[in-house]
């Protein structure tokens, strides 16, 4: 392949576009990790095979694309060019989709999306409320391109921004454009990207590095993975532009090892980019040399912290270090280094291509552009949503997310991962941007949004996050290593019904010490889940401590499962499903749970038919009286 220059890039683009018939049918299958887990590859194979059997494989394309984001409804299949949206496709649907829809244009009513509220069928992807209410800029192309095919990216305008920057702009002008756009770092910190680049550019030295932080460690957040897997070239192009602006010769993409598909797709994309001369020496005939390496992480949450990440690339333990010096002055191997997150890099080509003016019209005064959130937990429409900054939590959770699962009541939404906090219902209407979330005691973070309902115990959630940071604490500094452990111990006692008066105050004191005394962000922000739950749900802590009661009925040690004799019809499902044989009773007669043997796995409650509803969980005083009665019965026997 001849190396590209700007003219050849444009020639290649028109060649690809004109060789493709826009009316030619294409069955696109979402290839994100969610759909992979649902078995989309088998479905894609079935489509290919059955098209071949029918002799249609030369007339109809099959394309495995990047993530469509609506993971709840996977595996997702979209028939182009009409954009017919089919969801929850099974192997036995494949033949019908080909014969009826692709060949005859017939819509299959069982496979289209049905609005759960109105019951109306929605045929086109763009009309599904989950998508129509989003503003998909970064994710716009995910569903149209095969991430392992650079030609798809080029056909959609790929590398036009890089070509513009490298050949028509000066590095300072690129930085000015990014500054004017108002882009702020998407990894959580929210530092102005253009300013960061400028600082690194101004540091003398000719060996500079770029890093793309793809160590997306926050549990429940997966938008960066989706970008890398689904549209890796958008990130690579961002890096090329950044390298030109800052004057870097080499870059690393540090990918979490839990994301094997992202590692694979990025590696393939880099090979193709090099082959076309978009990486390597004399890129696009501009005289710039630049290359990118992929670094597979090894499983440590702290390596998402920038100084730890650099230690990891250097082949050492991922220990954070004191800043300053900041990476811009002394980073990887002591050289000036600029580090941005995946989503930040993916924003860059858009800004250069469409201009800072276009970009800065999206969002709020202090937070420009869109942000991708991973909307997960007790939500009807689990998935990745891209929205303009400034939209309210309510719009995301209820309008796009479709509200809470099983008609339950919204309790809180956790943002920002282990460094963030839980936001209660009273803040649902506040607009989302970097500053308002901080005011609510949480952070934007990288974009995880975990929705919780009335069945989630806030003390348990705080304990979960503290346990997480405690296990992931690298152990370098004492406040984090010892402080988080002390906090976990107290929280564990509270969830076990062994809390004592004074525990809350001690938690608050420890939180302050850990916050002030820790070296890196992991430690400094680790008390946030405790502090926000204490701020908004203090009564739940008090119930646990003073009344041995878990209002959400989630803490195992504070609940009992109990069968209502009057409601039980003696179907025996519970006793059959109890893994420890703790449920007994004759057929068609009320069953009883042996409280001493019960391990509280909840299997009985899961299988008790909803219309019978004989099994309930109890906590607090009611729990104590049930246990007392059970004990009395046991003694009298």
């Amino acid at each position, binding site marked *: 392949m001849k190396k590209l220059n700007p003219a050849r890039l444009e020639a290649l683009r028109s060649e690809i576009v004109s060789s493709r018939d826009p009316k030619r049918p294409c069955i696109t299958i979402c290839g994100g*990790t*969610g759909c*992979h*887990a*649902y078995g989309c590859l088998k479905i894609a194979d079935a489509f290919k095979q059955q098209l071949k059997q029918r002799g249609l494989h030369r007339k109809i394309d099959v394309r495995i694309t990047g993530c469509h984001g609506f*993971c*709840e409804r*996977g595996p997702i299949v979209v028939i182009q060019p009409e954009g017919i949206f089919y969801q929850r496709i099974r192997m036995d649907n494949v033949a019908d989709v080909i014969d009826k829809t692709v060949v005859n244009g017939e819509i299959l009513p069982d496979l289209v999306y049905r609005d759960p509220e109105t019951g109306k069928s929605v045929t086109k992807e763009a009309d599904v409320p989950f998508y129509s209410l989003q503003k998909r800029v970064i994710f716009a192309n995910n569903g149209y391109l095969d991430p392992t095919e650079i030609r798809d990216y080029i056909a959609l305008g790929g590398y036009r921004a890089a070509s513009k920057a490298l050949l028509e702009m000066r590095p300072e002008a690129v930085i000015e454009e990014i500054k004017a756009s108002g882009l702020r770092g998407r990894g959580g910190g929210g530092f102005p990207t253009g300013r960061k680049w400028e600082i690194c550019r101004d540091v003398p030295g000719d060996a500079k590095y770029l890093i793309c932080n793809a160590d*997306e*460690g*926050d*549990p*429940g*957040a*997966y938008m960066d*993975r989706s970008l890398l897997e689904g549209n890796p070239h958008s990130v690579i192009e961002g890096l090329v532009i950044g390298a030109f602006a800052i004057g870097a010769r080499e870059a690393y993409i540090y990918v979490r*090892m*839990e*994301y094997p598909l992202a590692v694979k797709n990025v590696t393939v994309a880099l090979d193709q980019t090099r082959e076309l001369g978009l990486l390597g020496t004399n890129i696009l005939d501009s005289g710039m040399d630049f290359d990118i390496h992929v*670094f*597979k*992480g*090894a*499983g*440590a*949450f702290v390596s998402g912290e920038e100084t730890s990440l650099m230690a*990891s*690339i*250097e*082949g*050492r*333990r*991922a220990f954070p270090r004191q800043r300053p010096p900041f990476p811009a002055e002394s980073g990887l191997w002591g050289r000036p280094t600029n580090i941005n997150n995946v989503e930040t890099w993916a924003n860059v080509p858009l800004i250069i291509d469409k201009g800072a003016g276009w970009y800065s019209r999206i969002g709020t005064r202090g937070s420009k552009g869109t942000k991708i959130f*991973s909307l*997960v*937990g*007790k939500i009807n429409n*689990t*998935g990745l949503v891209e929205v303009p900054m400034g939209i309210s939590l309510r719009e995301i959770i209820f309008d796009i997310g479709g509200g809470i699962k099983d008609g339950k009541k919204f309790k809180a939404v*956790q943002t920002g*991962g282990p460094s963030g906090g839980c936001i209660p219902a009273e803040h649902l209407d506040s607009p989302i941007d970097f500053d308002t979330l901080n005011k609510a005691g949480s952070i934007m973070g990288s974009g*995880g949004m*975990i929705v*919780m309902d009335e069945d*989630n115990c806030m003390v348990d*959630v705080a304990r*979960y*996050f503290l346990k*997480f940071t405690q296990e*992931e604490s*690298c152990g370098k500094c004492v406040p984090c290593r010892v402080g988080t452990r002390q906090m976990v111990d107290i929280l564990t006692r509270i969830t076990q019904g062994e809390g004592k008066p004074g525990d809350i105050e001690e938690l608050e004191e420890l939180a302050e010490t850990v916050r002030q005394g820790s070296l890196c962000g992991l430690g400094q922000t680790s008390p946030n889940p405790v502090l926000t739950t204490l701020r908004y749900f203090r009564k739940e802590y008090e119930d646990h401590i003073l009344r041995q009661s878990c209002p959400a009925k989630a803490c195992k040690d504070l609940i009992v499962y109990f069968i209502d004799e009057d409601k039980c019809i003696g179907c025996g499902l519970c006793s059959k*499903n109890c*893994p420890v044989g703790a449920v007994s009773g004759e057929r068609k007669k009320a069953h009883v749970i042996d409280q001493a043997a019960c*391990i509280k*796995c*909840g*299997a009985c409650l*899961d*299988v008790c038919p909803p219309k019978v509803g004989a099994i309930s969980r109890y906590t607090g005083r009611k729990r104590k009286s049930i246990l007392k009665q059970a004990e009395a019965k046991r003694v009298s026997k």
Partner: protein
Amino acid sequence: MQKILNDFPPDQKELIHVLHRVQAEFGYIPAEAVDAIARHLKISQGEIYGVMTFYKAFSLKPRGEHVVTICMGTACHVRGAPRILDEFSRELGVAPGETSPDNRFTLETVNCVGACALGPIAIVDGDYHGQVKTNQIESLVRSIQSPGKEPADK
């Protein structure tokens, strides 16, 4: 082992790459490998043990024939992952993070696999099982114990 090392220049920055390769090749990092890596990269064995034990990717002991991984991400947690982990641990007779004495099973947890729509998730030998309920676990475990039989509800 030497064949693996030949692919890497003798530089500390290669350490994590080398360890990944050895782990993939042997399923763990044998003590002899540490010795060979130390000599090849010209760093101390202590440095290597430090790195190996710091990161979750590397194991000092061989893992079981079958690996069951339970996602403990937040989305899975709020949907009941702890109950799922308890039940797997009980059915397999293996504590989380441990391998059974006969080396047949390893039970592990992971912080998040990013397939949150499917939570709670159990990954059995690389196969994802989504929206797992406690009462499905027994049949899942049986299907691993006697291969060939697919679990009833996948």
